[in-house]
């Protein structure tokens, strides 16, 4: 028993600091001041270096300010100080979930600047490799979202599918994650022996795994309730912010560069572009599941139609000459030396070119002064505008909605930080 004479209490209790001030109301004392919390940079829901400064009123977010953080590689400055070919490893690291798409997107812009046509077979292989990496990216996103909302099994299934793709990518390029597979004018190497049947087998297995993932998530009350009706963005706002890819299509805008302005051999292949209605997290998730199925269709068709022929242009000013020529002829030596030491002579001028990466429009604005090095490399990474809209989406909503919203935009640190 406490003795009131030993613990004197003020006549008028302060409702903000004195818990006993509300005893008569038979309810717990609630903090009435606004609360500021830092989510990240080491919060499991924030990816990599991102930090979110959140101002809370109860559980409602009043203000959110994302800070990208310091993952600096100095992408643009680095590219402007190396040769065109040496930019490739930097482009790989923009989106480490779909390295080849970044590779090929950059090369496509350079080839447009030179005015170069690449061989038919190289175009087909670029499509196949891009779609494999699109599946890789979407599987990671869907699995990670399930994990962060409490589902571990779907995460394991999607990562199993992703590992199968990684194995095929390793056989194709020699690297698991950052591949540097493309070259100006074509590709580094041809498909390895027996790769096509193996890939088809992997695709079959991934489709089986997807059925499991869908079954586990679509009928899960917790998952559906947290995704449906959260993180809504209207079509008009999505365009205003510069959304592209699955996030834009979830808002109901039918825009896919593969259909709008086909490049490589996309116009020869048959596939659909899924479009959502509500622009919420659930639609973004459905878009990714649908695109996984469409990518599967594209790869199977492309593998069937794959023509024979060279995989890189036969032009020694652009592609390295074959080794016997380098060792046996003076022209071969000279070309090899000049390409390695000085880089590819890209004519002066500028170009803007974009491809459909897994998260949206990956645009490149390149300026060349005629030397072997780029004068200016601007990358329009899809993740940057998508992340910039987060405060707009989340302000006035619940703190718990931040997690699925942040997951479904699939923010990639490497491309947002330039």
């Amino acid at each position, binding site marked *: 028993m406490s003795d009131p004479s030993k613990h004197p209490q003020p006549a008028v209790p302060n409702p903000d600091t004195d818990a006993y001030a509300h005893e008569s109301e038979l309810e717990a004392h609630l903090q009435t001041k606004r609360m500021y919390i830092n989510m990240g940079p080491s919060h499991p829901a924030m990816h990599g270096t991102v930090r979110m400064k959140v101002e809370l009123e109860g559980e409602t977010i009043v203000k959110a300010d994302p800070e*990208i953080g*310091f993952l*600096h590689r*100095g992408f*643009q*400055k680095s590219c402007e*100080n190396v040769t065109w070919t040496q930019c490739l490893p930097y482009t790989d690291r923009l989106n480490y979930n779909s390295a080849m798409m970044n590779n090929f997107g950059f090369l496509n812009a350079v080839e*447009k*600047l030179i*005015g170069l046509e690449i061989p038919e077979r190289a175009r087909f292989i670029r499509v196949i490799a891009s779609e494999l990496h699109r599946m890789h990216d979407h599987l990671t996103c869907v699995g990670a979202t399930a994990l962060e909302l409490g589902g571990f099994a779907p995460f394991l299934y999607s990562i199993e599918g992703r590992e199968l793709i990684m194995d095929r990518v390793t056989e194709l390029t020699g690297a698991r994650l950052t591949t540097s597979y493309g070259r100006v004018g074509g590709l580094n190497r041809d498909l390895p022996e027996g790769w096509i049947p193996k890939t088809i087998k992997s695709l079959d297995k991934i489709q089986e795994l997807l059925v499991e993932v869908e079954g586990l998530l679509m009928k899960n009350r917790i998952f559906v309730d947290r995704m449906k009706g959260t993180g809504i963005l209207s079509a*008009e*706002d999505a*365009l*205003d*912010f*510069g959304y*592209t890819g699955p996030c834009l299509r979830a808002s109901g*805008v039918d*825009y896919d560069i593969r259909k*709008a*302005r086909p490049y490589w051999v996309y116009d020869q292949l048959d596939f659909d572009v899924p479009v959502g209605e509500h622009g919420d997290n659930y639609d973004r998730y459905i878009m990714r599941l649908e695109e996984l199925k469409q990518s599967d269709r594209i790869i199977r068709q492309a593998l069937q139609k794959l023509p024979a022929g060279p995989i890189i242009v036969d032009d020694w000013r652009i592609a390295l000459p074959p080794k016997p020529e380098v060792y046996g002829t003076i022209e071969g030596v000279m070309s090899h030396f000049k390409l390695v030491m000085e880089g590819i002579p890209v*004519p002066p*001028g*500028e*170009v*803007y*070119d*974009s491809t459909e990466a897994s998260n949206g*429009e990956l*645009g490149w*604005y390149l*300026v060349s*002064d005629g030397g072997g090095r780029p*004068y*200016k490399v*601007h990358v*329009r990474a899809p993740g*940057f*505008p998508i*992340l*910039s*809209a987060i405060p*707009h989406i989340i302000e006035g909503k619940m703190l718990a909605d931040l997690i699925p919203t942040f997951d479904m935009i699939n923010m990639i640190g490497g491309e947002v*930080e*330039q």
Partner: protein
Amino acid sequence: MDRVSAHLPEAVAERYVDRAGGAWSVIHAQHLPKVVAYLKNDPELNFKLFVSIDAVDRLHLAENDPRFEVVYFLYSLTRHEHVRLKVRVTESNPEVPSLVPLFKGANWWERLTYDFYGIKFVGHPDLRRILLYDEFQGHPLRKDYALRDRQPLIPERPIKDIFRGPGTSGLS
């Protein structure tokens, strides 16, 4: 761009086509919001998708006066084409009107361009650095910023066997 030239003849300073066939227009800075609003709101043009903003430091190019070029990209979903605009600004007065009132997405791109090139966007609601810290001196993507210049917030400990290579300004 023909329609823009016809509708706002005083705004367009120069037009040309690049090697890949893309059409560029150079716009006078003070007319930029008018041109962009026209492109966005005209029902036939319909350039509603905001793509990106960046700048080019033309210091080492043959044609380098004025020094900076701010480049804008918009996309039309009905016409399926990009429009590219450029605004040239001088080094002594690098100011461009902000597009934030027209496009919400311009907010971060303008902050990025300000951070990297030091170009000021007049009318931007929250113009501060986005990737670098507030104490950072200079703008790293300008061509006269040394490649390996370092400005650590916390002093770096000396490491004996490290060679940072050429390109440092000797400041740190």
